Structure formats: C-alpha cells, structure tokens
C-alpha cells in the first residue's frame, strides 16, 4: 500500500502553484540485487492533475524520474478553497489519487 501524496497548492499572485511529493520506489529495472538478479522496473508512468473537473496538468514519466518523485506546476482559473486532485498510475497498474484545498 502506498503512502498518501503530499499536495501543497497555494495562490501566488493570480496563479495557483502546486507542489506534489509522491511516495514511490521509481525502480529503473536496471539495478541488480545482491544475488545478481535484476530488480524489476516499478515506476509511475502517468500523472494527471485536475481542478474543478478540468485537467490542469498531465504527464508521462519514465523510470528516470527520481525515487519519491516531486512535481510542481502553475495554473490559472482557480481560487482559495478549490480542490486540486492528483492521480498517479504506475507500470504495474497501481494507482493512487489524493487531493488538497488551495490555500
């Protein structure tokens, strides 16, 4: 089971700035165990953020995004109190959605 994301969304000027931390191993599939066997790839490959039913950012990721990934972006058209929701999906089909109110 994965840890909840930390989503921080705040109004900066006339924009909303979103900062997200996700708990995920982001295993590249290139590393080996002590016994020489390959550790299978396990990484978030899709991230979608939305606010008021509209996608405000989407991303395709590869295994070269760092472990416990960080993402930040800015968008317009939302105000304090609106909810920002972020969903990630990984290459094993696991998914997680969390949301936070804009501060």
């Amino acid at each position: 089971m994965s840890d909840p994301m930390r989503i921080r969304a705040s109004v900066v000027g006339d924009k909303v700035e979103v900062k997200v931390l996700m708990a995920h191993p982001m295993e590249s599939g290139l590393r080996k165990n002590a016994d020489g066997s390959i550790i299978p790839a396990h990484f978030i490959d899709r991230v979608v953020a939305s606010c008021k039913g509209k996608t405000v950012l989407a991303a395709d990721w590869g295994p070269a995004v760092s472990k416990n990934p960080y993402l930040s972006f800015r968008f317009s058209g939302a105000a304090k109190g609106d909810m920002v929701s972020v969903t990630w999906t990984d290459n094993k089909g696991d998914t997680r959605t969390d949301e936070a109110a804009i501060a």
Partner: protein
Amino acid sequence: MKRVLSYLLLSVFAASASAQEIDPTAESRELMGDDNPAFFWETRGEALWKEARGPKKANLSQCDLGLGKGVVAGAYAKLPRFFADTAKVQDLESRVLTCAETLQGITPAEMLKVRFGNGDDQRSEMEAITAYLVSTSKGAAMQVSMKHPKEKAAYALGEQIFHYRSGTHDFSCATCHAESGKRIRLQALPNLTAKADAQKAYVTWPAYRISQGELRTMEWRLNDCFRQQRFPDLQYGSEAAVALTMFLAKNADGGVLEAPTMKR
C-alpha cells in the same frame, strides 16, 4: 569611494569563490527547495507514536522524553540527557526504546527488527518515529544540560571516542571532522569541534538521504561513519553511541533545529 566599492566587490567575489571551493554542491541542495520526502517518514512516525500497540495495547503518548510525560515538542533540543528512571544518559532513540518497552511491552529487539531501512520495503519504525519526534522540535534551539555528573561524564567519554584512532586505516572521527574548510571528494566536512560547523551539522539530522531514498537518524549517521572508519558495528543506543551524540549535541548548543532535512 570607487576604490572602496571595487574592493568590496572583489572581496564579495573572493568570498563566494572560496565558498564554492569548500562546498561545490551547495547550489544543488539550494535548488531542491523544501519539498522533502522525509514527510512520509514523519507521517508514518506520528501514526506509530499514537497507535495502541504491543502486549500492553498502549500508545507512546505518555512517554517522557525529558520535558514530562506526553511532551514532545522541543524535547529533542534538550537531548541527550540524564533520566532518573533508567539512571542513564539517553539520546532520543534509546529513550524511545525505553518507552516502547515500559509503556507498550515491545522489546528493543522487536523495535529494532529493521534497525535501518533500505529505502524500500524494509521500513524501520525507529527511523519513522525519530523523524516525527524531531520534526516537532523544528525551530527550537539546542540546549543540552551538563549539570548531572553522568551528563558531564558522557560528554568527556564522547570527546575521547571522537579522537580515538584505530582499525586498519588509523581513522577516528577527528580524521575528517576536526578542521574547518575541508572536504572529502566534493563533500564539505563540518568541523565538529567548532561551534558554527557543529551546530550546522547537528541541527540538520535526521535527514532524507537522496542517494539512499531513506530517512536517516543520528544513530545511523554514527554507525555508518564507523563503518567507513573500518570499525565494527556500533550498537544502537550503546554507551559509545550516546556519549558521542552527547559530545556532538553539546557542541551544537544554541543551534536552531531544522531537521528533518534533505542531504545528498
């Protein structure tokens, strides 16, 4: 006037050049900002602290970390210290082990089943609990007591261990940490015998180590330094570990706690 200005400018440049020389990776840390995965350990640690567990089905909220039962905020800034109930000087981690045993009936061996996590599926409860407890002292200034004779003795012992050269490589802590302005490879080395460096080093642990994807505490920091000194395995909460922590914490007196931070 012009001359003074250009002199000032020159000295500013000279200063920044030498800072870059001593700590070439400072920019990298700066750009990382304050979004620190240590958050995940703090969250897990808080849940572990408040969850009724163990044979006694109790939580840890009645643990006395030195400021009285149940007081968490600010406690880390005054550790290690002497505790009358155990008649020992204890650091944060060894004190938590005492509380888990007395309040919850969970043995130290059980608590330390995973002593240090592997950044993945092997998670250390102690790393999570420590991250949580330290985070509640953010902004507090280090103020370590030397009133009790055992506190004084622990400091003196810690100082001796700091300078103790041994093993295949003749290393001691002092080999790398007793002179200012030095680095190992590109890593700036704090002089742990000098106030400013000692403060800066101590107040930034525990830290999320990005190279390991893991939250590391002072107990780990000491254990891994000794590993690289070619010493054997420093035992968690041992007399040497606590004494050395006492030496480092006292030298950091006045430093304002920032941990958990992020390190390389």
